């Protein structure tokens, strides 16, 4: 008898034809883990085994769709019962919607841990996997990070197949493609590439497919694990060419723009490749409201981004180095309030920015019930006390409050705004408007240098595209979209 494969060398090992050996092999590979269920039964004289993982299959479905038909099976006496059962399960019945034939222990383990019920028959060196998954999962809920008023209230869940159905329900086109891959040497996480065959550039799909297949990580738990493998210059760029969304309706608009999306099992956040800078300022509600109102709101968001990034730095630069540019009354007020504080403006703003970041981090990490207490403690008690005790000036509190509020308007750029804001404060504090200019050009150049998949991150503004920029400076009307819908390929730059 050959030795059983173990968890290190099972992947390419062929399934034995002897049932007792198969059971032994399965126990050996899994180390006879406690959640492995092996049921040996005799169907019409054929020794069979049904192997499942506890909690991963639906017991009701198993009873109705597998046990009942198999127990009622009649095989003619002149026929080999082993072959008969195999023929029945694989060719003469529709026990479940999903059915795979397995030849190696690699595929056995993949399906077993994915919640399939596996049937092995003595004398048949193959396994049959039946899709009757029934593990516990979260139901479809509202989006947590992309709220909207008038759009859909459904968000992706942690289960990849549910997410696929959410997309298919909204996009009933035969050109919609789902390509499933397994990534992660140990976790074998299901990853699905989603794109529209007639809209996504084939080279982009190929590149993403190759990149995903080349990942050699042990585990892939969330979208952040695979993002660095798709984005080539992730270390050099402040922003990211790969966006994410937890909304199926947003994902559908993205794939309709010719983008490629990636669903990852176990996380409700899917990746969007590539994403453009201006997309951070768009919401699904924009297309539900009047065009003029959306245009107004978009400009408010652009202003919010500017305030969140540069306002404290400009304030420090103007107040410390170029006070002559400020209005006289404002200057006198600022001067009076600054005279009462012990530290220079630059130090003051650093203190209050550190406080702001501390409170923001605390409110995210703490349970939501306690999180609101942090904002009361931070906003009312610490802020008020700091001003009254003269550590910081009152105008500065307004500046920081405005900056914080502005940064909440664009949550997708939260990481970047926090860090770039600090860079602007240092630049403004160290060299006034000259420092601001240097910092601005370095940041703008860094953003403009991003062109993953040969598509500039700053498109359609720079390089300018008349057609694309209509939906940036205003909101494109549906009638114009009806006439010509631009895709991501329109922004491709020649090499």
């Amino acid at each position, binding site marked *: 008898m050959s030795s059983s494969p173990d968890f290190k060398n099972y992947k390419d090992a062929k399934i034995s034809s002897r049932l007792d050996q198969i059971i032994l092999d399965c126990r050996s590979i899994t180390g006879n883990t406690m959640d492995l269920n092996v049921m040996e039964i005799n169907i019409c004289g054929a020794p069979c085994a049904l192997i499942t993982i506890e909690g991963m299959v639906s017991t009701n479905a198993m009873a109705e769709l597998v046990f009942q038909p198999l127990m009622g099976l009649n095989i003619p006496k002149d026929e080999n019962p082993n072959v008969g059962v195999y023929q029945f399960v694989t060719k003469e019945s529709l026990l479940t919607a999903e059915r795979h034939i397995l030849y190696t222990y690699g595929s056995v383990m993949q399906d077993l841990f994915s919640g399939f019920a596996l049937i092995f028959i003595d004398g048949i060196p193959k396994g049959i996997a039946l899709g009757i998954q029934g593990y516990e999962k979260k139901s479809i809920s509202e989006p947590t990070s992309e709220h909207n008023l008038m759009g859909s209230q459904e968000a992706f869940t942690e289960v990849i197949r549910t997410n696929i159905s959410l997309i298919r329900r909204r996009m009933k086109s035969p050109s919609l493609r789902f390509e499933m891959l397994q990534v992660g040497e140990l976790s074998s996480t299901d990853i699905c590439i989603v794109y529209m065959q007639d809209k996504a550039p084939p080279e982009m799909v190929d590149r993403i497919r190759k990149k995903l297949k080349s990942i050699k990580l042990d585990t892939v738990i969330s979208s952040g694990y695979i993002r660095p493998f798709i984005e080539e210059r992730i270390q050099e760029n402040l922003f990211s060419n790969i966006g994410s969304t937890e909304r199926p309706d947003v994902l559908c608009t993205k794939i309709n723009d010719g983008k490629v999306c990636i669903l990852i099992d176990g996380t409700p956040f899917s990746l969007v490749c590539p994403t453009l800078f201006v997309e951070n300022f768009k919401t699904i509600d924009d297309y539900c409201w009047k065009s003029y109102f959306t245009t107004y709101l978009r400009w408010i968001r652009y202003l919010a981004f500017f305030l969140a990034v540069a306002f404290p730095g400009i304030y420090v630069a103007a107040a410390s*180095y170029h006070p*002559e*540019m400020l209005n006289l009354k404002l200057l006198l007020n600022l001067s009076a309030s600054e005279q009462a504080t012990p530290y220079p403006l630059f130090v003051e703003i650093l203190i209050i920015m550190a406080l702001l970041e501390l409170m923001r981090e605390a409110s995210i990490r703490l349970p939501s019930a306690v999180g609101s207490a942090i904002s009361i403690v931070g906003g009312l008690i610490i802020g008020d006390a700091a001003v009254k005790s003269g550590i910081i000036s009152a105008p500065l509190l307004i500046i920081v409050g405005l900056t914080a509020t502005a940064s909440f308007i664009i949550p997708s750029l939260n990481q970047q705004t926090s860090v770039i804001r600090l860079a602007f404060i240092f630049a403004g504090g160290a*060299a006034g408007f*000259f420092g601001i*200019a240097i910092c601005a050009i370095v940041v703008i*150049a860094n953003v*403009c240098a991003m062109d993953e998949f040969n598509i500039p991150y*700053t498109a359609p503004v720079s390089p300018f595209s008349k057609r694309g920029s209509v939906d940036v400076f205003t909101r494109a009307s549906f009638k114009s979209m009806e006439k010509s819908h631009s895709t991501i390929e329109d922004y491709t730059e020649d090499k």
Partner: protein
Amino acid sequence: MRKISSLQFITILLCCKLFTVMTYIPDIDENGVVIIIAAVITTILQGILMIPIIAFYNKNNGESIFSFANSKNRILGITISILFLLTSLWALIDSMGDLSFFLEYCFSDTYASWAIIIIIAAASLYVAHTGISTLARTTGIIAVVTLISLILVLTGFEHHIDFVELNIAVKSPVNDVIKSLPKFISCSQELVAFIILMETLRNRPARTVYGFLSIKLFISVVSILAVVMVLGDYVSLSKLPFYTLSAFSQTKIIEHYEAFFMLFWTLCAIIKITLFTICSQYCIHQIFPKLNTIISEGCSLFIAAAITLPILLKEKWEAINFAKIQSLAMIILLAVIPLILLFFKKRKSN
């Protein structure tokens, strides 16, 4: 090397020109009308000077003069590359020096010239290293913001405008215009950059050249009019008229615009320095094809900084005036060399 569109190229050249226009140093006896006429004539002359290079481009299917000269004779190729490299280095020195000198002059308490030079060189090296397409995209954003802020500055001094300051009565207009021409032609560095980087242009060059020259003329005339009509005779006393002009500008929100001016002036300066760093790198690449890009960019900036800094520290920057030699060099680089190469036989395509 990535290609850029005609509009992007115009924007880059325009940003460089904006820096030159904003750094305009007037001669004592110059008159508003004379300066405007000189600016118009210079633009027409530049348009004529660019005809040979456009013809060369059309004849040789977009081949650069460097690769063409190299294919004819290696020494000729190297000589042309050195001439253009020297001009690029001079443009680097000129821009770095001007920026540093005027920043120190206007904000002497805040900035030291050596620190400005180092910071500018580091920022330009970073932007140059990202490539011409990144520079083009960056410039697209900066040009729009700069133009908007310029309009803002221009709207802030409507009460100070006085048409009498134009001094329409000129004693000897022809002589004065001819006297001003070398200085204006010497400020054609952008066109040299255009010739060096013409290979990166996606479209035909004529549109870019004449588009740029038209917009440049408009901006120059508006700027000169604004400076002359607002500052009047005070122009002659001001070392940096545009800075003084922005100090005059006032709105209900901002009392003085000089800090604002400095912000956008610095941005345009970095664009110009970056452009000429890329040009220097391109010329060095023609001479030493195997040299690493970042090394040649770093070397160009280092040489420019090493030449500029001692001049600034010895306070001799204002004494440097090579307008006549520069204008002659411009004519040679812009027209004579392309004209000579135009007479060579077209290279057979492979």
